[in-house]
């Protein structure tokens, strides 16, 4: 039985889809068989990030409604034999799928793949409920912003009521220079509140935007810093001990002074 891992965040636009694509591609590069499920029904874009949009014939809702067999809807990746995508429907609404159906689907896919990665929609409504229903583990993506961390905390609380292992965290879009100046939350601030295992830190990196537009996950580019971070994350997911990349993201002396002054302002 493979692992079913949902990638979720609460807050939108923090990098769930980016993470799903890059983690999936890295795991495949490491020899694992992987299927990505785009559970963001109605707002699909995992296929675009993967550069597979032009190959879609059937989608997730077609499968659960019985219009096609599961195997027919799976799209093979261009680069990796052992990587597949189950795309979301672009038009149907989120209620077209039930948690039971999602659970069944994940179970079936976990028979054939080492990893089933589910790209969750933002929010905590039905789409989120669907996305988590088949998962036995979760990766939370958060950016170093108060609102994103707050939403991640809420999600972690909701996942505690589920039958899965404690979720793990990826901090995305960290800007070391801002942390140094004391203008951005640092990793310790975030972990202090969320108190979950840190799976990795991905720097804010223009190469993500470039690769997203090209439909080539950043992990495929050897020079991409974010790509390197995701490659490390994939190895940690496989249980390897990988040292954290040196992002030099501790508050510098000025950052610390600034915090002190801000605190003394009261």
């Amino acid at each position, binding site marked *: 039985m493979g692992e079913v891992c949902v990638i979720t965040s609460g807050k939108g636009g923090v990098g769930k889809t980016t993470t799903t694509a890059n983690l999936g591609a890295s795991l495949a590069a490491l020899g694992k068989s992987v299927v990505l499920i785009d559970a963001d029904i109605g707002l699909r874009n995992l296929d675009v990030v993967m550069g597979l949009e032009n190959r879609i014939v059937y989608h997730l809702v077609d499968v659960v409604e019985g219009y096609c067999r599961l195997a027919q809807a799976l799209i093979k990746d261009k680069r990796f034999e052992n990587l597949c995508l189950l795309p979301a429907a672009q038009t149907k609404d989120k209620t077209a799928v*039930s*948690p*039971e159906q999602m659970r069944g689907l994940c179970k079936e896919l976990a028979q054939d793949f080492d990893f089933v990665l589910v790209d969750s929609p933002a929010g905590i*409504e*039905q789409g989120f*409920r669907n996305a988590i229903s088949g998962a036995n583990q979760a990766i939370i993506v958060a950016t170093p912003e*108060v609102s994103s961390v*707050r*939403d991640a*905390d*809420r999600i*972690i*609380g*909701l996942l*505690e*009521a*589920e*039958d899965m292992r404690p979720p793990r965290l990826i901090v995305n879009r960290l800007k070391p220079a801002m942390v140094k100046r004391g203008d951005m939350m640092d990793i310790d601030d975030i972990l*202090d*509140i969320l*108190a979950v295992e840190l799976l990795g830190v991905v720097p804010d990196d223009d190469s993500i935007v470039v690769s997203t537009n090209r439909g080539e996950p950043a992990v495929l580019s050897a020079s991409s810093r974010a790509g390197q971070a995701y490659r490390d994350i994939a190895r940690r997911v496989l249980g390897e001990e990988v040292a954290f990349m040196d992002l030099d993201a501790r508050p510098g002396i000025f950052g610390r002074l600034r*915090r*002190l002054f*801000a*605190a*003394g*302002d*009261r």
Partner: protein
Amino acid sequence: MAGEQWAGIRGVSTRSGVRLWLPEQATFQDAKLALAKALREGPSIRGLAVTLEAGGRPLRVAELRELELLLLEQHGAALLQVIEGAPSETRAPIPIGVIPEGGDDAESGARLSAASAEVGTGARRGRRAHPSPSTARPALPKEAMGLVGSRDLPLSPTATVLVKRTLRSGQRVHFAGNVVVLGDVNPGAEIVAAGDIVVMGTLRGVAHAGATGGEDAIVAAFRLQPTQLRVASYIGRSPDGVSAHAAVPELARVRDGALVVERLMP
């Protein structure tokens, strides 16, 4: 779904307590009755933290209070969080223990009265928060307390609920006695207690002690950094902007008509 059918499958245990589903019925009152019946017939949930699945029906504040009272008074269980928009499921109940302590003593009915003092706004660690006449409001409405509405609670006012977990954003504990948290209370989480509140970790959320008017109630925390603090009808909030906090255990109480924060151990 019919009540009888539901009664057989009343909930599942999770890592953090027990999870219950509000039966789908035409009206809220019917749903509540069906839940009450199922709870009477099922195994005890005393001392457990309850995650309630409310299904497609959004609960109104007053309805939430009714359920809170039902769980607390009849079953000695604290409602931790409500999940809305989730479809009902079927899994066998496996009760597990999480938070028992005190709670059991169904002593003489404690008469809880609504707060009637004036509301003051005060700064924290300015050490004194005098209720200023300009911000004084009439007594808080009874419903806002969440604990009143019923005259004779079967619980002693000194009953204590021990919450062995971190309360995360969106989670709340209301209890007609004291609340002790073995963990943190994160931003966005809330504790309302008729008695005292003690947090063994960092209190960053909202805490309301003496919620039914007890001005001698206290809030103590290993690290006291609340978003907002209330004792009886006195309100103090954290200063706006970034703040440094004392790195010692602290205690908040009403003294000479003001909410003050002092070191726990002088």
